[in-house]
């Protein structure tokens, strides 16, 4: 019995001995390596997933570019049932709606951010900031409703043939992009060192001059980021836009009143028609092809904007 007891003790000690080096083994170095591996894995997986998405898009969409002559693909007739797959009207629709949204949202968003960050007294800021965050939380479909019920009649009363136009879509999209633009710009302004403001004011700058010549240039890259993210949100938006732009897949005339006509965007086309096409058909491929075009356009915008910000930063010797 005593023997057995001794044996148990010895065994426990043995285990303890083996466990302890194990703990040390884990704590030193290996744990570090493990964590590093996990972080690396999650980082790489993002890239891999993006790559896979792109490959998938290419596989499904590329046939459209191969089977349809480019002239026809970028032609102005979108009648899938009759075999006309001209995506030009959709491209124009998307561009008009998005450009309109940018023109409305960027100045409004930036000025709101400047007001909130630089001019508004504390009590107003405390009321407005949560409100803007609530705005960001409104589901896009609700904004679609709002556009349909409230905005469309107003647009129509302005003289448009119908209330469901590119302008209506732009306004709704601008509204969606605003919270993003405002809150990120405000963060960017907040990040500008207080010393810059003091320095400018101390040499006799007015508040406006301080904002315009010192604070805004210093926050430039953050502001550009805000605008990009806002636009990014707008460009990919589907539901709200689908509800309020009228969904007419033709280009009226490329005149100044273009925003007052119904248009159809690329995203809306994909969403509306995807459910009805036979998988593997040409129409199906073309819808994915539109996806590729959307991808390329978005990527190009990101690239150009990134370059712009980057070059400004470089020119200023690394300082913003």
């Amino acid at each position, binding site marked *: 019995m005593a023997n057995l007891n001794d044996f148990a003790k010895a065994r426990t000690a043995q285990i303890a001995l083996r466990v302890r080096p194990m703990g040390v083994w884990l704590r030193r170095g290996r744990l570090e390596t493990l964590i590093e591996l996990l972080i690396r894995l999650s980082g790489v997986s993002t890239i891999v997933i993006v790559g896979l998405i792109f490959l998938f898009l290419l596989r499904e969409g590329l046939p459209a570019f191969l089977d349809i002559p480019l002239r026809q693909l970028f032609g102005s007739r979108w009648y899938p049932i009759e075999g006309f797959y001209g995506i030009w009207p959709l491209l124009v629709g998307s561009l008009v709606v998005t450009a309109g949204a940018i023109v409305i949202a960027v100045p409004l968003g930036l000025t709101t951010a400047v007001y909130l960050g630089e001019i508004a007294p504390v009590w107003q800021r405390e009321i407005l900031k949560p409100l803007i965050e609530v705005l960001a939380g409104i589901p896009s479909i609700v904004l679609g409703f709002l556009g349909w019920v409230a905005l469309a009649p107003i647009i129509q009363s302005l003289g448009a043939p119908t209330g469901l136009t590119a302008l209506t879509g732009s306004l709704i999209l601008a509204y969606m992009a605003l919270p993003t633009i405002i809150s990120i710009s405000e963060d960017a302004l907040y990040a500008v060192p207080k010393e810059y403001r003091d*320095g*400018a004011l*101390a040499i006799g700058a007015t508040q406006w001059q301080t904002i315009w010549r*010192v604070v805004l240039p210093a926050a430039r890259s953050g502001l550009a980021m805000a605008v990009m993210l806002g636009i990014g949100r707008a460009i990919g938006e589907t539901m709200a836009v689908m509800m309020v732009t009228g969904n007419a897949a033709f280009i009226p005339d490329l005149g100044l009143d273009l925003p007052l006509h119904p248009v159809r965007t690329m995203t809306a086309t994909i969403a509306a028609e995807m459910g009805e096409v036979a998988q593997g058909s040409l129409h199906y491929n073309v819808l994915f092809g539109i996806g590729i075009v959307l991808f390329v356009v978005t990527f190009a915008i990101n690239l150009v904007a990134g370059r712009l910000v980057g070059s400004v930063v470089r020119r200023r010797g690394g300082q913003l």
Partner: protein
Amino acid sequence: MGPKIVVKNVYFTYGDGTEALHNVSMEIASYQIFVLFGPARAGKTTLLRLFNRLSDLIENATVQGQILFNGRDIFERGTDVIDLRRRIGMVFAIPTPLPGSIRDNITYGLRMAGIRNRDELESRVERSLTQAALWNEVKDRLDKPASALSGGQKQRLCIARSLALEPEVLILDNPTSGLDPLSTAMVEESLHELKQRYTIIMVPHSVQQAARVATTAAFMLDGEIIEVGSADQIFGQPQVKQTEDYVTGRFG
């Protein structure tokens, strides 16, 4: 000629109720270096920021009393604060060149003051940089980003930026805090030159620096002025026990 700045019974309370200045009164004569020294949280910076009304930026703070600049109360209704800030330049503890080139930094203030003439701008850039003892180091790279300068150069650039406006008073809030001894010496050197033409009010980095540069000195403690006098008096034969203790390093 009367004193440049007269402070009369000034009280300053922050929004959270902290009293930073308590019944501060003093006179600052022209063309000298007036040093304001004392331990941290004595109210030195608060007082400096009142002179050019940067204190306006602090929300919910209350000021009582008078500060006369050239005989006029700066808190008077209708005071042109922008003009006041052009006449009373200020340099901060952390050198903060504004975004842009060295030249831009000097011309910002001038342009805002409405000076557009190219020759005038050029000559002011050279003059102010020379006065701040920086001209020789930067004359060949005026269009390079100011952010590329060293710490000491940045601070002298900030001094030059204020001088370009040809102010009457130059306020320096611990201008050598982040500088090495050599840069500090250069800044102090230029201060001695500058006091011929400007009235300088300065919060020094240390008692030693205070003693080196001061013409007149005021010792502050807990928001009050303890003693004001000539440098010889304050650092040689202080009249008040607290000043003596602080100057000789027995406390603080």
